[in-house]
């Protein structure tokens, strides 16, 4: 029977990094639900079609909205949807269920950093859910909705880098906000509120340039823009060269700030933590 066991360890001479291992397991866990995933992605894709047609009607009378051509805009809409799917909400819903049921005790009796393990899980799920969502978005988008491919390989690389930073920003944000559940223990309100706020301020619904003055100023400063608006604008070539570098730097800065905030907030939450159940 020991051969069964060794099978998983062939070629392994040392343990792999615990967070990488955790992300891998989450990835495999996510694959188990691929049928549900396909249904989910397909249904939400309807949303893209609706927004696409709204904008098409708007562009019938005008060639340009805040510097976006119709081609830019349809690319924006489709990509924004894809990115939203890529950077899932897993971290929030996973934290919610473990905090509510007290399952979190099992996470915490292990030598794992709480924030780190939530990010690792989120990464594992995002690879499955996000890659599938993104692939579907790009295929359907390029084939049927006429979105434009990136201009160059360099631009594509910057886009991917910006996307990764955006993933970290969103995960850390959701982590910080989800910590509120340690005080309220019921997370539905928190989840809905954060989702709405992040949707708007990230530019997932409407490009930030099109927002009313006051909101635009707020949205340009806050970290949420780094989730959707920054990567899409890099993809579209609306920010390139020094501007692109500046935007990426801003994203990186927010990642650092949020990571510090997350660890401070976690320390506070931990002092107060009440593990539910006996």
């Amino acid at each position: 029977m020991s051969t069964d066991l060794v099978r998983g360890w062939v070629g392994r001479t040392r343990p792999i990094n615990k967070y990488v291992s955790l992300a891998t397991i989450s990835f495999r866990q996510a694959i188990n639900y691929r049928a549900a995933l396909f249904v989910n992605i397909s249904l939400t894709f309807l949303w893209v079609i609706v927004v696409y047609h709204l904008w098409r009607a708007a562009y019938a009378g005008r060639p340009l909205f805040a510097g976006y051509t119709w081609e830019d805009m349809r690319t924006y809409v489709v990509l924004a949807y894809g990115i939203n799917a890529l950077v899932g909400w897993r971290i929030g819903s996973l934290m919610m269920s473990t905090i509510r049921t007290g399952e979190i005790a099992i996470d915490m009796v292990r030598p794992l950093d709480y924030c780190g393990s939530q990010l690792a899980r989120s990464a594992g799920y995002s690879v499955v859910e996000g890659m599938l969502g993104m692939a579907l978005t790009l295929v359907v988008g390029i084939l049927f909705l006429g979105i434009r491919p990136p201009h160059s390989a360099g631009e594509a690389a910057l886009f991917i880098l910006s996307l990764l930073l955006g993933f970290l920003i969103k995960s850390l944000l959701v982590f910080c906000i989800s910590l509120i559940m340690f005080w309220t223990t019921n997370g539905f309100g928190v989840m809905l509120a954060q989702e709405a706020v992040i949707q708007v301020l990230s530019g997932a619904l409407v490009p930030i340039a099109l927002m009313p003055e006051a909101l635009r100023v707020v949205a340009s400063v806050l970290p949420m823009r780094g989730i959707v608006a920054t990567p899409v604008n890099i993809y579209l070539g609306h920010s390139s060269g020094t501007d692109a570098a500046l935007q990426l730097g801003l994203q990186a800065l927010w990642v650092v700030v949020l990571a510090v905030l997350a660890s401070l907030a976690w320390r506070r939450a931990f002092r107060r933590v009440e593990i539910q159940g006996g």
Partner: protein
Amino acid sequence: MADIVVADHLTRTFRRPERTGGLRGALRHLVRPQWRTVTAVEDVSFRIGAGESVAYIGPNGAGKSTTIKLLTGILVPSSGVARVCDIEPFRERQRNARNISVVFGQRTQLWWDIPVTDSLRLLGDIYAVPAATFRATLDNLVDVLDLGPLLDTPARQLSLGQRMRCDLAAALVHEPRVLFLDEPTIGLDVSVKARLREFIALMRATRELTVVLTSHDLGDIEELCPRLIMIDKARLVYDGSFAEVTDRFGWRKAVRVTVADDAMDSVAVARSALARMDPEVTGDGPVVEVSFDSRRFPPGEVIKELVLALPVSDLALVETSAEEIVRQLYEGTLALASEPEPEPEAVAGDEH
């Protein structure tokens, strides 16, 4: 024997919302929340030596789980100090985690949709167990717990007993020094229970594992834990050996005799013969049971008197079972404070 688990005046309080029922109560709480402080663990102190096996018991809501959470570092004490392997668990939660393991009878630490092997491997990674050690430890666990046929099964398809066996293996892959078992046999059938107890005893013997067990199952306690720590209403009420509990509180003994001549009124005869001992005498046909205080009168004396007074054909000495004693302790019918001959060493915590 070095102390490996130490609780020093541990106290933990919680703030609970004070809410009256119904919509009105909910609204009132929203406007002006009222809080009430609940003390889950109050001034609890004990020391557990390396390799010891201790049952930590008490009625539901007494504060057992809170203590375990304080010792595993997932709760911060309100005051007092916990120390496990010379580490304050909540200050160095991750370092503490490498020394300990926790098995929750009601929760699994296996990943639900993933074959058991992979969960075990992930745990090996999390604890950074060197591959060769991991393989050796696991081969041994697989062998002893007979996990071979279960390894490729996802956790969700396991029966409760199978899952518990896998959970125990999962708890031991990193060779912890202290194992906390939180109601490990809850819901298991008799034979599975017996196997688990056997396994835990074996691990204790072969690995110098320190075991802290919370359970309502007296079988678990009796078989695994020579020492008993009892907590009630957040306070420690007893810390001593299991045998001593039976000695201290098992003083009510009974002599049951069968009388050869069933024509005589044996109950009345026994009563008058033993009058000075103030016994409780009950009769059922030829069987007479005399229950007495064995601290005041040695059983031998009672038996002698009975044999002289009655034509005894059969005789048995009945001791109060541990189960009965613990049940009475839980119900509060056996007061620890009013013990007539208190041994000051044994009663820790004050009783005011």
